[in-house]
């Protein structure tokens, strides 16, 4: 278990060797669960786990599927979680395929009473099988559905209230979705139940081109933008400190670059903690 508000990094397969050699002083690491269901990478993760707290972040459970979660996939996740003993297990407010097909992307969910009931049922089932709380992350979305009736942060708050799950507050996703849909990012942050937020994610984004022109894309392939850092500061004031993860998935830089971004996040967490102390003293 890491310090309650420490910064970690997303550990990706190309950084395995460097990470083991450097043994960096990061607070914790997060990995994509599905990359460790089988194969030699699992052996590396066990070596990492011997020295660092690990968070398992899934992308394939499809908690938003109308037909329920894939129990085979859930069982694989349970086997991995039992083996690694992660301090967090998380997934997304998303679905990844219909009727047995899996499309390897986090697809947008219409937000209404029926989808809320289904999503809560799936989260409860996952938590029952895993025998632990999971966190649900706010997604990046690029379109909305006319049948949606519930604002996204309200939907997440209700999922947490009904199921007892925690939340990941992905600052970059809020920034990108706010741009794409014309939302107010600070209003979004204030609508989240602060007591349920157990982790932050920080990542980079890029403007869309050609057929995606006008949208921001959650690319995870570049440095965190100043605007996202500023929104993170705002989140620390509104929600408070908790573990934060630097997330990079494409055009991976040297491991040291991610560690520098994690150090920047840690500085902000520490500053917020000092600020909170001053308020208490005053």
């Amino acid at each position, binding site marked *: 278990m890491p310090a309650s508000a420490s910064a970690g990094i997303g550990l990706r397969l190309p950084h395995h060797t460097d990470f083991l050699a450097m043994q960096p002083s990061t607070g914790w690491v997060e990995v994509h669960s599905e990359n460790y269901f*089988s194969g030699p990478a699992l052996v590396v993760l066990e070596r990492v786990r011997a020295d660092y707290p690990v968070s398992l972040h899934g992308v394939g459970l*499809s908690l938003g599927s109308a037909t329920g979660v894939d129990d085979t996939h859930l069982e694989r996740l349970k086997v991995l979680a039992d083996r690694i003993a992660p301090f967090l297990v998380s997934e997304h407010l998303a679905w990844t395929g219909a009727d047995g097909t899996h499309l*390897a*992307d986090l*697809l947008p*969910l*219409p937000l209404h009473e029926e989808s809320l009931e289904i999503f809560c049922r799936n989260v409860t089932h996952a938590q029952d099988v895993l025998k632990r709380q999971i966190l649900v992350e706010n997604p990046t979305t690029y379109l909305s559905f006319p*049948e949606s009736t519930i604002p996204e942060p309200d939907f997440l708050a209700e999922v947490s209230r009904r199921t007892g799950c925690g939340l990941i507050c992905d600052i970059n996703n809020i920034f990108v979705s706010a741009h794409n849909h014309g939302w107010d990012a600070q209003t979004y942050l204030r609508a989240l139940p602060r007591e349920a937020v157990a982790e932050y994610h920080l990542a980079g984004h890029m403007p*869309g081109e050609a057929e995606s022109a006008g949208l921001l894309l959650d690319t995870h392939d570049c440095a965190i933008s100043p605007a996202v850092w500023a929104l993170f500061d705002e989140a620390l004031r509104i929600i408070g400190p908790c573990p934060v993860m630097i997330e990079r998935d494409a055009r991976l830089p040297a491991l040291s670059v991610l560690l520098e971004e994690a150090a920047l996040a840690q500085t902000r967490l520490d500053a917020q903690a000092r600020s909170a102390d001053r308020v208490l003293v005053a």
Partner: protein
Amino acid sequence: MYSLRDRQKKFQAALLAISTNETPNGLAVYRNNVRGNLTLTLKLAFPATLKLIGEDCFYAYAEQFVLAQPPRNADLHLYGEAFPAYLAASTLAGQLPYLADVAWLDWAVHHALHAAETPPLDPQTLVHAPESFSFIGHPSLSLLALRRDAQAIWAAVLEEDDNRLAGILPDDSVAPLIILRPRGSLEIIELSPAMFDLALTLASGFPLDPALAVIGEEEAAQALGLLLSYGLFSGITPKATEELPCPPR
């Protein structure tokens, strides 16, 4: 209003539609993500195939395959088993007759690397085996009867050794291979045709005695000992398999 299930089916169909005309830009992002993520999955599973035909050609065929046969399992390490057969049926196979076999070898290696870590069967187990039993093939095992030039091409392409690649003569005779990882490291072993048939028969769950009878009693013990030393099996099951699985290619 669409039910959630109907909305998801309709959305999925739009993502997998071949035409990209008049796609709203939000939907286009998801379409591009799905195609990009799944073709990347294939790229990682078929490294020699990718190098053999080049990125542009690979992506063109991979994208067609992704739309025609999207994954049916959330574990994407299992996605791509049908890609070699897809390539074998493509026009590309006419120009590169060894292409599908190189892809089969890629898949067998990928499969071996991601199979469950299971120790091979200890031959001592057979001392106390029931009278009638069948073997359980090791989870990392593939048995492939490939063109003889395919393995050399596969290796030369992966090592980016163009001189060696240029020197490989076409050879469409059959090389019977087993590919497996029973003890942590990958093994690619060529068997004699008789040994390959025995390995295929036993790993497919056929009972031991009839299978050994085919090759004769004298050679049987030696042949079985060799297959056990390769780590071909992970266990035995007391009863012969009633519903025999389709033999692997």
